[in-house]
């Protein structure tokens, strides 16, 4: 999997690209931690439109990012999840904790 990031005006957008499973998640979480340390954003957006696959390891990553941002006094939300991640997000009920935004 690949992680790309864009920062502007206090908002860090993290683009998760490819497949996010247990094998990939440790590196992915470390990359996100480094990005949050570097930019100290007010808002963090997890952009999932190019994430072809994720399982519960992705849920743990989202929850962890939420906790890190809360510690910094910031907000997190998910943007444009692709179909399969969307179904996993729905099944897990994580959207009660972390909002999901769809921008077309």
């Amino acid at each position, binding site marked *: 999997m690949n992680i790309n990031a864009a920062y502007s005006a206090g908002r860090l957008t993290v683009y998760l690209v490819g497949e996010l*499973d*247990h094998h990939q*998640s440790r590196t992915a979480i470390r990359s996100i931690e480094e990005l949050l340390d570097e930019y100290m954003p007010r808002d963090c957006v997890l952009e999932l439109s190019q994430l072809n696959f994720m399982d*519960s390891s992705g849920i743990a990553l989202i929850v962890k990012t939420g906790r890190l941002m809360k510690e910094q006094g910031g907000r997190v939300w998910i943007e444009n999840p692709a179909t399969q991640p969307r*179904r*996993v997000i729905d*099944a*897990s009920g*994580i959207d009660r904790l972390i909002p999901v935004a769809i921008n077309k």
Partner: protein
Amino acid sequence: MNSSNYIKIEFPSKSCNEAFARAAAAAFATQLDPSMEELGDIKTAVSEAVTNCIVHAYPQTIGKVSMRLRVIDSCILEISVRDWGCGIENVGQAMEPLYTTGGDDRSGMGFTIMDSFMDSLRVRSASGKGTTVTMRRCISPRTGRR
């Protein structure tokens, strides 16, 4: 003559095999002509079951994982994932949403996801002997296809 199709794959509990197991299950499922959504559900459930073997069944060692898929009545896919690891003491508790022994790397949602993506889920486990997770998903014939 109607002997149903099956495959059986065995691999070591290395995390690099998670993606392989998903891809193999998807490739086998293709014969039932699943929709993209059904294929995604099958890959997700397999990923959860196999990851549990790798993370929980053999926490400190590399052990054997076996995955079996078969077609029942030409429309039901049965997936069975087995390990010979530590086993689960209380299966009912383990299957509850958010229950995890995996700390904050895990979300405790694996069984919940398998249960909601598959039509049936059965977990058999014996402490110190291992665990078998068996799931079934009916792949409905698609109308209007050629």
